């Protein structure tokens, strides 16, 4: 198990380095000049040149890249060229709300997806199964922004039940709980479909497996057969899917954070890219990529815990 974990971590390091390199090069390839963005539309060429020098953008790319790597090696992600705030400080302020949002979305959508997938599998072919699968397909198909706007319009505006204009406070306060419901429902809503469908497929497979037949033959209650013998074995592909989907959830978080004015990393990334704030954009890319890599690493390790064949391979 330890060897398996070391191997997976070892593979994650070059991936991270690749992300850093591509992240830096992408920002260089983009035909954007942060100095012109900062100078505004009325600035003359002389003013733009002065601002470019002030930001250190007149140095050759390899010099900028060298400085970037040196800073990274020291754990310094740099300073925003727009508002002079340390990138780590901004990330520190925004990671919390993003994690809050993602965990809240997963908190309700994963159990619900597994639950719906299990009951659809148990009553496969029934009207309930078809209804759940239809809802799952709709869930997969509905774009995050559309679901968010529908919820804002009805729940927030028409019925005036919940706030939708940002984070209301810490999650342990009532304002915080109320403010996170709509973003979490939006983000989690698109997660239910894939989880339910995968759970259904896996549970259907395991329900016809020999060990389940044996369990039934032993006279175990049906609830235990399903939960202990069928669902547990069916969870391996579901966990893999969840791991992969969390990556997409990061993408969804960017949209959700924008719609609901949620002060997270996704919104920070969009803002940094739109304002050509190279250090901030690179910092957010690193954090989002690191999140993706860590989730995949966790899934790999969890996979090995759940299925001994993986760690033996």
């Amino acid at each position: 198990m330890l060897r398996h974990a070391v191997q997976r971590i070892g593979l994650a390091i070059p991936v991270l380095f690749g992300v850093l390199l591509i992240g830096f090069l992408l920002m260089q390839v983009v035909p954007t000049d942060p100095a012109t963005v900062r100078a505004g539309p009325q600035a003359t060429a002389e003013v733009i040149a002065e601002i470019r020098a002030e930001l250190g953008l007149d140095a050759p790319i390899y010099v900028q890249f060298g400085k970037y790597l040196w800073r990274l090696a020291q754990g310094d992600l740099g300073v925003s060229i727009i508002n002079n705030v340390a990138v780590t400080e901004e990330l520190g302020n925004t990671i919390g709300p993003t994690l809050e949002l993602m965990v809240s979305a997963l908190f309700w959508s994963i159990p619900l997806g597994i639950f719906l997938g299990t009951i659809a599998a148990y009553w496969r072919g029934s009207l309930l199964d078809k209804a759940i699968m239809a809802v799952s397909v709709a869930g997969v198909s509905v774009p995050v922004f559309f679901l968010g706007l529908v919820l804002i319009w009805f729940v927030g505006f028409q019925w005036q039940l919940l706030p939708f204009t940002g984070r209301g406070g810490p999650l342990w306060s009532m304002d915080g709980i109320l403010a996170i419901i709509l973003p979490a429902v939006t983000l989690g809503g698109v997660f239910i479909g894939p989880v339910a469908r995968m759970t259904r497929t896996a549970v259907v497979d395991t329900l016809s497996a020999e060990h389940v037949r044996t369990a039934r033959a032993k006279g175990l209650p049906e609830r235990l057969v399903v939960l202990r013998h069928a669902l547990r074995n069916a969870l391996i592909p579901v966990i893999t899917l969840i791991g992969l989907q969390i990556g997409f959830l990061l993408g969804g978080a960017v949209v959700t954070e924008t719609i609901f004015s949620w002060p997270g990393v996704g919104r920070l990334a969009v803002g940094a890219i739109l304002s050509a704030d190279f250090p901030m954009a690179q910092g957010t890319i690193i954090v989002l990529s690191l999140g993706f890599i860590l989730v995949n690493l966790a899934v790999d390790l969890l996979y090995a815990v759940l299925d001994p064949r993986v760690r033996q391979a």
Partner: protein
Amino acid sequence: MIKTWRRATLGGLAALGLAITAPLFEAGAQTQPRNQITFMREIDSDRYDPHRSTALAGGEIIQMLSDTLVSMDFDMRTIRPGLAERWEVSPDGKTYTFHLRTNVTFCDGKPFTAEDVVYSINRWIGRTTPRVVSPVAWRAGPVKEIRATGPHTVEYELNEPFGELLPQLSQYFGVMVDRATVERLGDNFGVQGFNGTGPYCWGNWTPRSEFVMTRHPTYRWGPPVLQNQGPAHVERIVWRVIPEAAARVAALQAGQADITQFIPEAFWDTMRRVPTIRSSTQPNYFWDVFLGFKVDKPVVSDPVIRRAAHMAVDRVGLTRAVWSGHALPARNIINPNALDYDAQSDAMVPNHDPAAARRMLDEAGWRMGSDGVRVKDGQRASFLMYGITNLTNQRSAEIIQQGLRQVGIEMRVQMFDATVAWGRLATQEFDAYILSYPYISATDAMSLYWHSRNRPSPNRMNWNDPETDAWLEEARRGTDPARRAEVTALIQRRLAEQAPWLTLARTQLTVFSTQRVDGVRAHGLYGIGVYRGLDLRVVR
């Protein structure tokens, strides 16, 4: 067994439903704290340093955090006292003597003196250490020296007269800053803090999310253009960034925020029908959208092509289609309500008349080609237009393209993201471009865009006319209002005749608010919705 399982299923669903909706029974949507007003806006500023930012998002907050020497009335042409209660101008128009109020303090309680004016203006024009590069330092005029001649008297000496000085000093770039705070915060001034003389003080800023300001309790020196001179009625103002337009519309109607000017025009009629929403429109709002031609590039260098473009584009239909009728179709480059607007040049701008455009092009030798695009001397009547990607520009470009096509002119369109566009718009790669800009008077509008020394940007037309330069310089110096109006009229007529710029629309400023607040009146100086915020009051 199956029944048990089904009961469990239904029970689980019910529990989940209750878990999700339980808080709703305990508390509804967020209500606003008493004596707090929430503004909504689309984007945040890069920083709140008046000498480093030119963003509208920065200006609307900075004008509340500090004061300017003079203030601008709602007619957008009358200058009123600000921190200076009176001033004199020397006979040669080069020296302004400002007499400052004596009872003014910064938010930290420090008295405001003439030395603060000297420092603030010098910082704006890059004469302090470390040097600050303001993209709009030119707006302070050709400064020779700023001197404190007494604790509350300042002499503002220019190298040559600058008739626009007072309106320029009313803009947010000219607000007063506290030297000690600037030096203490260094590059973080306007990021981590600010110390101004304004009706509100810096609370805290969460970039891209929220800006909080609190009332300046001892403030008593508000500009006379407002009913309340201070202190502000409201204890706390929160500026919340809501990037999604539909969310802003819904939030205002749901009472989750109080004031915004960032409602898309397509919603204006609907919003005005909502009984709980009020709106205030500024008739003297000067922010125009235009299509500029590079006058030294092939095809568009021909004034006939440019005049034909004016005749081909239906500006009335365009404003209806793009701004839902909530923008005024434009003619001359200057708004009729702006200082030194020239009515005669308006009449010189060609009317929408595609048939006449076709005739004029035929007569000028532009013959219709087999592909529907005209040709003259082997040159196709085709040009490339650049613009910033947004819905307004895209829809405007489509309508312009369609109109031009009807008269045999092809316009190729290339749009760029805002981060890329400014760099591309400073090049000579394109033949025409679409853009919008704010101004406060004819001289202000034209000095920037039409002087030859400002080529290639912001004079992206490459307009190079010694007479225009001379008139502009005279207008800028213009201490005699009549002579200034005369020379700016000459420029307007020259531009109307040569048609290097097709002014498309004059956008409108409307500030929407809920019934919860009173005292909202749209102002519009440099696009600012609410000026200083002293009249704002929570009434419900």
